[in-house]
């Protein structure tokens, strides 16, 4: 198989072209160009599938990668090399990610054509959706951090536009601003990290960074007193925290559900939030070198557990899903932190599939019954069997029930976390990571089944409004029967396709994910074989391919895992036996915990034999309803007290110091200077310079007029006199 620019670039360019056409001519196209956007993503999907097939089914060696570069601009002069290269870098991870992003985005587009039908923002939605997808695809393919940053920012802008697409809703506008500003805090750090790397290495291409790590170029380098590796790793991880909504910067993600539900699906599943995990995985060798993995693990654990607790009391179906996204992102970050590279990336993929499906299912419900408050739903199982089926599959997956994908990936992360926390000889305080991780897993099972039970089971509460319940949607469904769902190609088929891929064996090769019941035999543990932390030594002096070159490789068989760990633990001090033990314990524990969560949800919401949380712990529920007061803290304390106070100080400084002393003082000094220069102008320039010149010329004229008589004999006399005096002088 040959790889040229011609069959890599369309993955990125097709959605960009769709964006440009829809942006300028979308209104003139039939259906405002939604078919064009969907088609463009499908083209991306075809090309991605080809790359995926080649990489996964063994046309390429397992450690192969395509790296094509071109010089974007060249400001070198003489011995100073100052070149900026751009290029594509496609390895196994990229191939998997490309297929996931384009596939999930295609199904979301397809669903959106149904969901956004007859919506006033239909055209605008289908303008930003392909741009969003293309930015994610471009980010995944780019070979350096700078290109990654550019696409990162395009995604930030697209999420801003999609969240605030209903421009007349004030809450939507606020939410979009919040998302943009919060992620911007992380982005500043990311840029800082990139600049620091550039300053020292002269390049921010992944391969150059890996090679620099292998060659030990980071040794002894410091930035503002801390080691360069720690500084850059921390900055890049802070950027990832902003984008992947980790603990202190998580506040934007729950509000991001203000946009249309398919847009949320795209933000929460395939694109945007996985970007942070992606950059953490790409820069994993740097994180290890900088020794901040424990910090990453702790941040992930706090997010995973905290978000799960908040999700327990949310009543909005999309809010539950939003907090579950936060929680699952926490697990991915735990995976990065505890060295579970393979499983963290697998969780990105499995989560993208089931979270996209969950959001689309929620969209299906909201669009059908025009209600998203769970206490007003219930009993929808009878009316929406297909949606119920898809959502149930995804709920089982996210809750970590065996045979489903979430179990496979989350369990591996938790097993590695267990090893990391208790057995690897780290600081004993880090045991908090597996503890919070397992607790969050139980809560996940609980709140997801709570959502399922409240939405699909029990009796239908539609039309029965509580005391202060106002009907926001007019009375067209007030007391009406809900229409039964029929299998619709655009409404249900995307959900069902995604639901199929929530099964664990697609990713792990075996039904349980532990290699116990193998489905396709030896070769099927493709994920474990193909994805591993970058081995930095391979990148020293690695040749580059030119942009226009053709990439040809002979077919090689996929060999048995070069990667023989049972688990994929890539952190410090791996110990095979202990890791295996940790995984067995972890698997059993997580099954028990998940089952317990489901059981409690069942008793609470179906049997109603346990009082719900709200009546049992009213104080704590209130705290959770207010999301641990993070929004209040940011607004009331940080912004109103801190930022506003600082602003007032600055304004006092400006008015009191600058205006009074600098500006007024400058005016007084200027006035004096003006007087001096006026005197100088009048006396020196005018009187002496200008008039003096005239007088001098006049005087000179008087003399010249006498000499210049025009009488030639007089001139001749002068000539003779001068010559004679000259000769006389010389002789003396």
């Amino acid at each position: 198989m040959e790889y040229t620019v011609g069959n890599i670039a369309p993955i990125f360019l097709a959605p960009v072209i769709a964006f440009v056409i829809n942006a300028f001519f979308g209104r003139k196209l039939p259906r405002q160009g939604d078919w064009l956007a969907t088609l463009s993503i499908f083209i991306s999907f075809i090309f991605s599938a080809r790359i995926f097939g080649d990489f996964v089914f063994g046309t390429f060696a397992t450690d192969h990668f395509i790296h094509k570069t071109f010089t974007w601009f060249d400001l070198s002069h003489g011995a100073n090399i100052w070149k900026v290269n751009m290029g594509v870098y496609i390895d196994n991870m990229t191939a998997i990610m490309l297929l996931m992003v384009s596939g999930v985005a295609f199904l979301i587009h397809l669903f959106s054509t149904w969901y956004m039908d007859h919506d006033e923002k239909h055209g605008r939605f289908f303008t930003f959706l392909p741009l969003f997808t293309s930015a994610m695809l471009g980010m995944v393919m780019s070979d350096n951090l700078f290109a990654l940053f550019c696409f990162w920012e395009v995604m930030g802008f697209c999420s801003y536009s999609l969240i605030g697409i209903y421009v007349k809703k004030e809450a939507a506008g606020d939410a979009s601003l919040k998302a943009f500003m919060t992620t911007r805090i992380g982005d500043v750090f990311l840029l800082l990290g990139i600049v620091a790397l550039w300053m020292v290495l002269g390049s921010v291409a992944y391969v150059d960074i890996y090679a620099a790590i292998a060659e030990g170029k980071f040794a002894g380098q410091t930035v503002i007193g801390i080691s360069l590796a720690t500084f850059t790793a921390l900055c890049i991880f802070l950027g990832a925290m902003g984008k992947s909504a980790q603990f202190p910067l998580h506040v934007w993600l729950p509000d991001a559900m203000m946009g249309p539900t398919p847009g949320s699906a795209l933000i929460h599943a395939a694109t945007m939030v996985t970007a942070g995990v992606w950059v953490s995985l790409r820069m994993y060798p740097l994180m290890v070198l900088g020794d901040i993995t424990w910090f990453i693990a702790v941040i992930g654990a706090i997010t995973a557990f905290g978000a799960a607790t908040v999700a327990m009391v949310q009543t909005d179906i999309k809010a539950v899903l939003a907090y579950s996204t936060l929680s699952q992102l926490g697990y991915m970050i735990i995976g990065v932190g505890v060295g579970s590279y393979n499983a963290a990336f697998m969780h990105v993929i499995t989560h993208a599939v089931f979270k996209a499906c969950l959001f689309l299912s929620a969209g299906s419900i909201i669009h059908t019954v025009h209600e998203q408050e769970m206490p007003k739903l219930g009993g929808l199982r009878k009316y929406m069997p297909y949606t119920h089926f898809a959502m149930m599959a995804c709920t089982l997956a996210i809750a970590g029930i065996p045979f489903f994908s979430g179990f496979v990936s989350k369990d591996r992360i938790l097993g590695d976390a267990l090893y990391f926390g208790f057995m690897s000889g780290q600081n004993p305080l880090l045991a908090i990571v597996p503890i919070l991780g397992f607790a969050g897993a139980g809560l996940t099972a609980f709140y997801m089944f709570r959502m399922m039970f409240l939405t699909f089971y029990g009796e239908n509460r539609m039309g029965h409004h509580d005391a202060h319940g106002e009907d926001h949607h007019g009375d067209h469904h007030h007391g009406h029967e809900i229409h039964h769902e029929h299998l619709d190609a655009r409404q249900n088929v995307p959900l069902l396709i995604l639901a199929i891929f929530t099964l664990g064996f697609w990713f792990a090769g075996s039904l349980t994910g532990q290699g116990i019941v193998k489905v396709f035999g030896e070769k099927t543990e493709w994920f474990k074989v193909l994805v591993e932390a970058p081995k930095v030594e391979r990148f020293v002096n690695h040749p580059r391919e030119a942009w226009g070159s053709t990439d040809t490789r002979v077919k090689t068989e996929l060999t048995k895992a070069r990667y023989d760990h049972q688990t994929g633990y890539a952190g410090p001090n791996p110990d095979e036996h202990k890791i295996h033990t940790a995984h067995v314990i972890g698997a059993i524990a997580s099954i028990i915990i998940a089952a317990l969560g489901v059981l409690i949800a069942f008793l609470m919401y179906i049997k109603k034999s346990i009082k719900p949380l709200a009546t049992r712990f009213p104080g704590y529920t209130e705290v959770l309803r207010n999301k641990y007061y993070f929004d209040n803290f940011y607004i009331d304390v940080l912004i109103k007290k801190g930022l506003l106070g600082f602003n007032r100080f600055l304004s006092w400084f400006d008015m009191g110091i600058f205006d009074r002393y600098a500006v007024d003082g400058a005016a007084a000094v200027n006035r004096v200077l003006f007087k001096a220069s006026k005197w100088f102008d009048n006396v020196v320039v005018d009187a002496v310079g200008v008039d003096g010149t005239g007088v001098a010329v006049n005087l000179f004229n008087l003399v010249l007029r006498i000499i210049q008589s025009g009488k030639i004999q007089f001139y001749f006399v002068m000539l003779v006199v001068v010559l004679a005096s000259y000769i006389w002088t010389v002789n003396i």
Partner: protein
Amino acid sequence: MMGLASYLIISLILFVVGLVIILSRKNIVAILLGIELVLNAAALNFVAYSRYVTNNLDGHVFSLFIIAIAAAESAIGLAIVIRFFQIKETIHIDEATQLRN
């Protein structure tokens, strides 16, 4: 005894007479004649030095050039005098103070 000195004395006399004519006469034609005398004094000097000092033909060649240039110069000078007379109807040197009429 006809030595170098007697040639130089004759030449000096010619030069001074020519110079006095140039400075004192008001007639333009007379001034032109004075210039001729000065040039001839120079030519005589060249020939005399050539004969008594360097003893080659350089001075003779120079004096031939001087004679040729003097002829051309007096031709131009006389032409100017004629034009001047046509305009001013005089050849008094003090009338010729303007470069335009």
